[in-house]
């Protein structure tokens, strides 16, 4: 059974604290007749009653799993939050003030309680909730991920302030994605944003606010970038041959994060559904690769990849499995380290040459259950093997991924084109010399 105690410890307000706090505060105030803190004067009498207990630092509850949950709600902060207007019972409708305390809820874990309280948010924020349900965050929650964010993970319910997510100092994303935020803050976008340019993107501009998606999926990132950089295609077309093709096959950070490591991502698509194929089950060569978001660099060789596609396409499914290739940066961190255009890679030779760094890492991508792609390592030879002419027909970078077999043919043709005339010429000369020295042979003919 969970136990409610008061101690000297202070904790961060949360939905969990609020839920319990509401109950506890009402009962404690009713019984003890304590007055509310003067700082929470904007709140209703009922809320002030709650804060009579829950406004005291140190109030906490021991949960079933042994964790301790702080029930302290700073009165001023709550009063100034957007939720101050609806008061404690606006959300904690399950608390019966007549019996609280001593009646109290049993809470197994903070996570379980927060997950249950998400439905309370839905009552008022149904649109945002619907968007969240489509997000990668919700997909991870459904998958059972115990740290995937719920509403209260980003929006502290007792302290939520309008516009907090639009400020670099208070944007909630950095709580979990701290390293990425640090990279972003040092990028051209972060520097401009912190310099006061509100047109410069913050997290939600590219990833969505509640319908958070992986911007790097497919051509998603390109579309995100072009959302603001509407003239990018036109400006690139002035100097970049096949600019549209580059936009389709090369993600923006590949050139605009010059120091990044690059990787060729070969995505298995279904030609009928135009969606990423889920991880192909039942193919031993594929399953043994242990796909993970951080794929190893070895893996599928060209012949196995060809066999894999043949196997997938021999099954009785609608559409054909095809491979679409795309050059991306290796990590999400590097995706956010964008630099100014003048420092971006504009030298074609960086990629269009044998041994280019861009083509040393190859990964095969399939759809994971949460929508997050699962990647399998592949050997870099899949890009230059004759076996890949058909299997990865959709990705090719002149010079950088040229097929080795054709190079051999070229050398043979060049040598043959030189050797044949030289040999013929030599034979003509030799015969002429021989016949001139042996006139009888000449006469015989």
């Amino acid at each position, binding site marked *: 059974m969970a136990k409610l105690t008061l101690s000297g410890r202070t904790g961060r307000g949360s939905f969990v604290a609020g839920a319990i706090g509401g109950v506890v505060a009402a009962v404690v105030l009713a019984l003890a007749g304590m007055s509310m803190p003067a700082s929470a004067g904007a709140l209703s009498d009922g809320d002030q009653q709650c804060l009579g207990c829950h406004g005291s630092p140190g109030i906490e509850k021991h949960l079933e799993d042994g964790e301790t949950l702080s029930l302290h709600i700073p009165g001023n902060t709550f009063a100034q939050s957007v939720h101050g207007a609806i008061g404690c019972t606006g959300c904690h409708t399950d608390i019966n003030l007549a019996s609280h305390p001593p009646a109290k809820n049993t809470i197994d874990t903070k996570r379980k309680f927060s997950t249950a309280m998400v439905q309370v948010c839905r009552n008022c924020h149904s649109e945002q909730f619907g968007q969240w349900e489509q997000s990668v965050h919700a997909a991870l929650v459904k998958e059972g991920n115990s740290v995937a964010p719920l509403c209260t993970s980003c929006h502290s319910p007792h302290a939520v302030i309008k516009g907090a997510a639009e400020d670099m100092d208070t944007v909630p994303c950095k709580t979990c994605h701290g390293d990425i935020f640090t990279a972003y803050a040092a990028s051209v976008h972060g520097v401009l944003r912190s310099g006061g340019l509100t047109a410069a993107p913050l997290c939600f501009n590219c990833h969505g606010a509640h319908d958070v998606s992986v911007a790097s999926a497919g051509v998603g990132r390109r579309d995100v970038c072009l959302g603001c950089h509407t003239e990018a295609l036109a400006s690139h077309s002035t*100097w970049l*041959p*096949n600019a*549209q*093709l580059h936009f*389709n096959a090369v993600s923006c950070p590949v050139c605009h994060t010059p120091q990044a490591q690059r990787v060729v991502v070969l995505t298995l698509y279904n030609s009928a559904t135009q969606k990423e194929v889920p991880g192909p089950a039942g193919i031993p060569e594929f399953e043994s690769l242990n796909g993970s978001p951080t794929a190893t660099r070895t893996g599928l060789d060209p012949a196995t990849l060809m066999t894999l596609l043949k196997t997938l396409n021999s099954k009785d499914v609608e559409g054909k499995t095809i491979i679409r290739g795309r050059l991306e940066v290796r990590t999400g961190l590097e995706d956010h380290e964008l630099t100014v255009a003048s420092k971006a890679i504009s030298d*074609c*030779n960086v990629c*269009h*040459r*044998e*041994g280019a760094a861009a083509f040393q890492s190859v990964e095969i991508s399939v759809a994971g259950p949460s929508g997050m792609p699962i990647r399998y390592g592949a050997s870099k030879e899949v890009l230059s093997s004759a076996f*890949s*002419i*058909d299997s*990865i*027909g*959709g*990705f*090719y970078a*002149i*010079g950088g991924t*040229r*097929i080795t077999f*054709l190079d051999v*043919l*070229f050398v043979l*043709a*060049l040598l*043959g*084109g*030189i050797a*044949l*005339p030289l040999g*013929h*010429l030599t*034979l*003509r000369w030799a*015969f*002429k010399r021989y*016949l001139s020295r042996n006139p009888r042979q*000449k006469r015989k*003919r």
Partner: protein
Amino acid sequence: MIRIYVHPLPVRIWHWVNAAACVMLVLTGIQIRYVGLVNVVSFRTAVVAHNWIGVVLIANFFVWFFFYLFSDKIRVYHPELNAVKQFHAAVRQLIYYGYGIFKGDPNPHHVSAYRKFNPLQSMTYQIIMLLVLPIQFITGILLWNLTRFAGIVAFFGGVRVVDTVHVLIFISFVFYILVHAYLGTLGRTPLDYFKAMFTGYEDIEEG
């Protein structure tokens, strides 16, 4: 020795433009494909030049095509309509180049105004002009703007398939250009055929 007019002006213009364009396309193609190994001009310059020279080559193709289509000179490609006879003549020509020429045998082919090509030339040139070059034009145009022609490229199996065909033809052209230039020296004198392609006249022995 008599002089006969075998190469009309449009054909000579077409031939040398074609030759120059093909050589330039091979060279820029090598630069494009082998950046790092070959660094004469930048990749981008090579690509832009390759594209424009390709346009010239395609336009020039139609000079050849329409000249022969709308003149009686088209007969030079089909002096012999009997395929069996043509085949036997081609074999004789091959034996000459592979053996007879060493012994000093006379060339089995006798040039005239409407028989300027030997059977091997006639066959080879038709394959090149009516099959190989058009395929190279098509693959080149597709590679020139892969986004615009994405549907067609996908129909053919993707950019890698299209590029492989383009490169295979490029490789065969490298071989062909070298051998073609050598065969051009097998006239009465090493420069006879080259001179004829400039003047239009070829000197042939009487009888």
